[in-house]
Every structure is written in C-alpha cells, then in structure tokens.
C-alpha cells in the first residue's frame, strides 16, 4: 500500500456562526471533495458552563467526516495535535474499510475482523498514519471573543507542527483567519512545512462583530482545491493523487 495525501481543515472557534451560509452544509461538501473538517471549540479557562451554540461544532465535524472537541485553553495544544492525528487515523481506517469491503463483502470493517487478521491490519493503518503526507489548513476565528485566546492558539499551532513533523510523512500547513472585511478569510501564512515562525501573525487583526463560519469554510475549501496547482509545481507530486492504498 502506498501512503496517500490527506487533507484537513482545522477550525478553531469559540462560538456559533451568525452570518452567511450553513457551515454544516459546507463541511459536508468539503468531505465530498476529500477534505476532512475538524473543529475545536476553545473555552476560556474561567468559563464554567458551555456557551450555547457549541452544538454546531459537533455537527460541523460530523458532516465534515472529522473530529470535534471542546477544550479549555490550557489543554489546547495537546488537543489540537490529538484531534488532527485521530482524524488522520479515522480517514485511513475509512479507506482501509472500503478496501476490506471490496475484498470481503459489505459490512466488513476492521473492528469485525477475526483477531489475527485485525492484528495485522491495525499495523498497516498505523504505518500509513506515520508515513502519509498531510495538508492542514488552519482556520482561526478571530472575532472579538477569541482575541485574548490567540496567544494560546499560536502556541498550539507551533505544537501541532512539532508533533506532525516527528512523523516520517511530509506536512504542509497554512493559516487563515476570519472574519476579514474584504474577502471573508485572510491568509496569514502560506503553505509551509513548519509552523515555527508564526510570531506576531495574529497581532494585526481587526475583529468584527459577526462570525461567518460557513462562508469562511467555503473559502478555505476553495483555497484547498486551488492549491494543488502551485503545489505540484513545487514538489512534482501528482496533485490529484488519491489516498492510494
């Protein structure tokens, strides 16, 4: 099996959308385009009750074939890398399950395999998670309530790149923020293999009073689908390569 290229959008937000199209629909569309959507809801360390509207976070991730998690700021780093890695595993498992079904008939999944076969297949999945190439588009909600959480977000993104770059497979990251008055989302960092030099990226952000999560996700998806052209010129990899197994 050949490791493929996995694509993820990682949305960091702390509230529900209140502007534009339905983010859940956009997430479903992304999934259809082979892009997984993960969502992390960032709570204030002092916040005790879940703010309302965070159900949306779960629904977006579900529709986007990804994972959602609501966390306090102080565990953001550990959560961001865990969610990303788990979503990778989930995607790979999905692909492997599909293959299994083709070979062994419908309803056959890893969990249902006889124990000795399962023992082998999980090693294959694990190997793929280690070696596959990964592209993560980070989309950060910078509306007013997120403002004081941005330093923590920055740390978490650095930490994410530390975790993923320990893998054998290669990584590409980029960072967008929203809302942006002109173009819904704004590119802060272009595709790069490391998120180390991200100091000051969130410093010049004007935060509006609205949260257009749906439109922002849509723009992010465009950014993804447009990206392979430039990418293919850079490293000569077939941009439309599927998660080949």
């Amino acid at each position, binding site marked *: 099996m050949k490791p493929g290229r996995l694509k993820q959008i990682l949305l960091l937000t702390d509230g529900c959308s209140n502007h534009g199209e339905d983010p859940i629909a956009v997430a479903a569309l992304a999934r259809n385009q082979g892009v997984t959507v993960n969502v992390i809801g960032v709570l204030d360390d002092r916040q005790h009750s879940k703010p309302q509207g965070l159900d949306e976070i779960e629904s977006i991730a579900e529709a986007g074939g990804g*994972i959602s*998690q609501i966390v306090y700021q102080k565990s953001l*780093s*550990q959560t961001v890398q*865990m969610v990303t890695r*788990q979503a990778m*595993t989930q995607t790979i*498992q999905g692909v492997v399950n599909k293959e299994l079904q083709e070979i062994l008939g419908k309803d056959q999944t*890893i*969990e249902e395999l*006889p*124990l000795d076969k*399962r*023992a082998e297949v*999980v*090693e294959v*999945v*694990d190997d793929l998670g*280690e070696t596959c190439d990964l592209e993560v588009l980070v989309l950060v909600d910078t509306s007013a309530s997120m403002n004081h959480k941005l330093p923590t977000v920055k740390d978490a993104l650095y*930490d994410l790149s*530390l*975790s*993923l*770059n*320990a*893998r*054998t497979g290669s990584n590409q990251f980029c960072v967008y923020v929203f809302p942006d008055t002109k173009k819904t989302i704004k590119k802060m960092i272009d595709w790069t293999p490391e998120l180390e030099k991200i100091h000051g990226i969130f410093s010049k952000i004007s935060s509006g009073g609205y949260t257009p999560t749906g439109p922002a996700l849509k723009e992010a998806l465009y950014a993804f689908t447009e990206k392979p052209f430039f990418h293919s010129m850079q490293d000569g990899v077939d941009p439309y390569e599927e998660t080949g197994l």
Partner: protein
Amino acid sequence: MKKQGFNLYPGSYVRGKWSGHGYIIEKELGSGACGTVFLSRNAKGEKCALKIGSDSSRLMLEVNMLKKFGKVQGVKLGPSFVDVDDWVDPSRQTFPFYVMEYIEGAALRSFLKGKSREWVGICALQLLSDLEHLHRAGYAFGDLKTDNLLMVDSRVRLIDVGGVTQFGRAIKEYTEFYDRGYWGLGSRKADPSYDLFAVSMIMLEMAYPGRFEKGVKPSRTLMNKLTASTLLKPYQKMIIQCWEGKYLHASEMKHSLSLVLMKRTMSPPPSRRKKKQQQGSEKVELVTFSILSVLFLGVSIFSFWI
C-alpha cells in the same frame, strides 16, 4: 475521548466471543484515554488485568506491543500478554478487550513516602536499566510517567505499553509534563533520549508532586525548579546534562547516576553529614590551635632557655 459505554461491576462476567474464555470482574484499577482496566479472575481463579475499551484498533496495537515486549531478551518489560477478544454485552454492543498479567504494586509516590532520598535515584536507575533493554530492541517507551509505573518488591515495573514507538517514528502517546517537545528541548521523534528526558522529569516530579507549568520561558522554569530543590541536589549535574542532550543512550545516563549513588552510599546520610562536617571543621580548628600553642609554648620555653 469516545464514550466508553459498557457497564461492568464487581461480579460481572466478560466472555470472549471468539475463544469463549470468560473473566469475572473484581474491581476497577484505573481508566485512561483508551479504556478501563479491571482486576479480574480467569476460569482458574487467577488474578489478571483486563483492559476494555471501544477503540478496537488502538487496543489491538497495544496487544501487538504487549506480545512483543512482555519479554525482550529474556527481560520482562511490560505486563505479559494473556488473551485478546471481543465481548458482546447484553444489549448486543461489542467491546474489544484484552487480558494481561496483573501487576500488584504500589504507585511510585506512595512507595517513596518515608523512604530515604537515594530511592529517587535508585528508582531512576532501575528505570534506565529497563529502558536500556527496550532501546536495544529499537523502541522508545514514549509515554513514560509515574502513572505508568508500579513498584513491585522494591523494583520499578513499566505498565501501559500504549506509547511504545519504533525509533525514528513520531511518539505515539505522550503527556506534556514529561515531553521534551513541550519544554522546547527537542522533537517528538522517538529516540533513546526522548525517554531519558522523561526519566529526568519523573525525578523532578518527586521533588514537586503537584508538577508545574512551563511558564513563559520553559527551560528557565526547569532550571529554577531543579536548582531550588535540595532533594535533587545530588542529581543536579546529571539532570542538566540530560536536558542538554548529552546522553544519547540509557547506559550513559545510568553510568552518571550510579556514580552519584555510589558516592552517596559510601558517605553518611546527608542530614548527619552536615553536622559531622561542622564538627570536623571545629576539630581542625582545635588541632591548629593546639599545634600553635605547643609551638608558642615551645618557642617561649626555647627562648626561656636562652
């Protein structure tokens, strides 16, 4: 992360759907990110530890590791593997589980309570010996932390092989406090020094049971904590060298540590040594005084004679 969803109580019976082997649950030992561990009894009434969860892939990866590392080169590293199966609960839901040797031991902290302080070093030494074997097989333990250690007959035992990672790959599981990446002191790629760093942090935790956060300058925080601790004084140099990445293999750190420990066991315990030293220096003063007075006397007598 996932809901676990099974209902198991003391007396519950878990029967494997593949092999038919059954286990009676006795009590919960602990639970973590990927499952819950129960003390249970097999058909012969022998004690064993049963781990049950909902992520069958993850559990199976752990089983693969247990099989590999129950014994490395004749040395026991983790608990030995007993059984793996799926349990179909009364509501027809399937839960994967595996069974391993039950390790009856004490948590490191309660073991150390009331013990003299060289035990901090001795436990670290034992840990380094185990790591040496694991490393020789080409793997890092990964999630090395006090929660994953048990003391049995004054010997440290590793449990929870969920983080064991082949060298050169990304560490599978880690806990921030023990992770060199969190402290800005290196990558999360598995290599021997990844575990050595965790050993140093286990030692720091002995001095600071509540642990501590990294603050704005992580390496500064570490250094301050280290130098402020009298418990860790003898190990200071070794720990700093570990943080500087001077030790590439467990054997090197073990060597430094045994030098410290050998030195300490040959001299009296630190609390009394201080007094002894003081007494000692008083003695020196006394001796000097007497020699001087003898000399003086001698000189006076001598001059008297003239």
